[in-house]
């Protein structure tokens, strides 16, 4: 009996020890906390940088985060937000202070804009910036990086050859016979599949396969034969593969998607230094570079953190 009582008393003590061991991770999500060997961070105010969870977003998030660190900020990273809706919600309720968003996406999906898509990248940005500033709490969309990361609808090479597919119109014609691999949001978002259907009414895929991750898995899915067509991004390395053929879009149905940091305005006001650091990063990017960085992560399996660090050093943004 005495032994039993001792055991009962020992258990809370053991559990407390276990708690101490696990306590190193209170609050931050495992795997994306600030790494031990970061220099330059600490000391300054803390900024939480978020991002959505696909390759390009991881890289953009890392680029902005590391640039801020090099400028004296203490950065927490939350690079696992599942969609722009989730990211936006986190931004507005203070869980994160900023994240990289695409001008077109913000217009159509976040800010509730219902007009015609602006006809130039610049007007797209200006409209988004304006609408962001009118929100409560207000947000500031900084100057975008100068490249367009838009949708690339692609098919497997053998499918393209079989039906002689070159443009979206061609694809629409045969779509009832094909399976389309997409991520969940693409199906119903205004600027996505419905957009395709509005402009090319023949679109009516026989089967829609939903893979709930953006990028790699969709390419894999089409290559494996789970589907015949898929949706990718024009800055993805995989789109360059010989096995895939990207459909041309003579009608230019997509809005412009230029990535820019979206920061909560109150945070930006308190920390004006952020602007310079973030703009420097955006200015250093273009389509070629983004494609290369994306490929390093998605195809060569390198870590977004390392890829970002290397790039920033090359450009002299970080020593």
């Amino acid at each position, binding site marked *: 009996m005495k032994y039993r009582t001792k*055991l*009962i008393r020992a258990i809370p003590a053991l559990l407390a020890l276990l708690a101490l061991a696990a306590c190193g991770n209170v609050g*931050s*999500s*495992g795997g994306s906390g600030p790494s031990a060997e970061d220099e330059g961070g600490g000391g300054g105010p803390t900024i939480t940088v978020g991002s959505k969870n696909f*390759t390009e977003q991881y890289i953009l998030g890392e680029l902005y985060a590391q640039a801020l660190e090099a400028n004296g900020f203490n950065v927490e990273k939350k690079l696992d937000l599942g969609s722009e809706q989730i990211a936006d*919600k986190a931004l507005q*309720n203070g869980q994160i202070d900023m994240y990289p968003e695409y001008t077109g996406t913000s217009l159509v999906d976040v800010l509730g804009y219902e007009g015609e898509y602006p006809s130039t990248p610049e007007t797209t940005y200006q409209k988004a910036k304006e609408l962001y500033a009118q929100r409560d709490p207000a947000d500031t969309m900084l100057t975008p990086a100068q490249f367009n990361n838009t949708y690339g609808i692609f098919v497997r090479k053998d499918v393209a050859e079989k039906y002689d597919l070159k443009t979206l119109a061609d694809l629409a014609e045969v779509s009832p016979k094909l399976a389309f691999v997409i991520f969940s949001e693409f199906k119903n978002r205004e600027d996505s599949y419905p957009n395709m259907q509005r402009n090319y009414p023949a679109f009516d895929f026989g089967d829609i396969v939903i893979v709930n991750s953006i990028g790699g898995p969709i390419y894999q899915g089409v*290559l494996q034969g789970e589907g015949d067509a898929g949706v990718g991004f024009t800055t993805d390395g995989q789109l360059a593969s010989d096995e895939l053929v990207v459909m041309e879009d003579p009608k230019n149905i997509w809005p412009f998607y230029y990535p820019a940091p979206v920061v909560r305005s109150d945070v930006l006001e308190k920390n004006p230094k952020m602007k310079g650091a973030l703009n420097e990063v955006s200015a250093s990017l273009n389509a070629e570079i983004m494609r290369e960085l994306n490929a390093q992560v998605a195809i060569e*399996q390198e870590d977004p953190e390392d890829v970002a660090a290397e790039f920033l050093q090359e450009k002299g943004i970080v020593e």
Partner: protein
Amino acid sequence: MVDPGAFGLALLQDLSSIEEPRLIEWDWIRENFWEDIVPAIQGHIFLSFVSVAIALAISLPTGVLVSRYRKAYPPVTFVTGILYSIPSLALFGILISIPGITIGPTPVIIALVAYSLLVLIRNTVAGLDAVPAETIDAARGMGLTNRQILFKVEFPLALPVIVAGIRIATVTIIGIATIGAYIAAGGLGKMIFDGINRSFPTMIITGAVLATALAIFADLSLLALERHLRPWARRRRA
């Protein structure tokens, strides 16, 4: 319906047509061990531990109460049983639709606690029930108060069954905590999801294997504790 022949053929075709990525890149594991892997393990242990602790804090007193006032037992079992039947992703979904609950560890911990209540309460009651009435009478005869009887006689005797419940709850919690990563709660599930998003099998395999190892480790440790506390009983049917 599914045609076994075609299915088998398709399966073989799938296996032979997978693209290149090497299954396990040991370099990545070595390089990222302290940066990514250890925090993921820590985060996972944290989620699980906090959930088990809170669940115990709720279920032990509830179990005692319910074993005394039996009328409350069926409704309690009913409610906790329903909670237990709701698939995890669905419960997470329901919780984050409640205004005020944001994504992150909070809804996950709430759900994990909810899942383990049934097992813990049921085992607490069963354990207390198994204490022979004569033992309690004898203790009362020796002048012990009800409170003393509970802590010095009933709990120690009920411990094996309670620990059996803790074992099942802990293993379940560790398993479901992996899914919590989907709503940004961190842990080993994050490695699994990131691996899927990045088409990076190494992360998937590392996350999955570590989560499994953690669950099995907890299972075996608690099983050893349980057997230690109850050497006389033969192994219980599952």
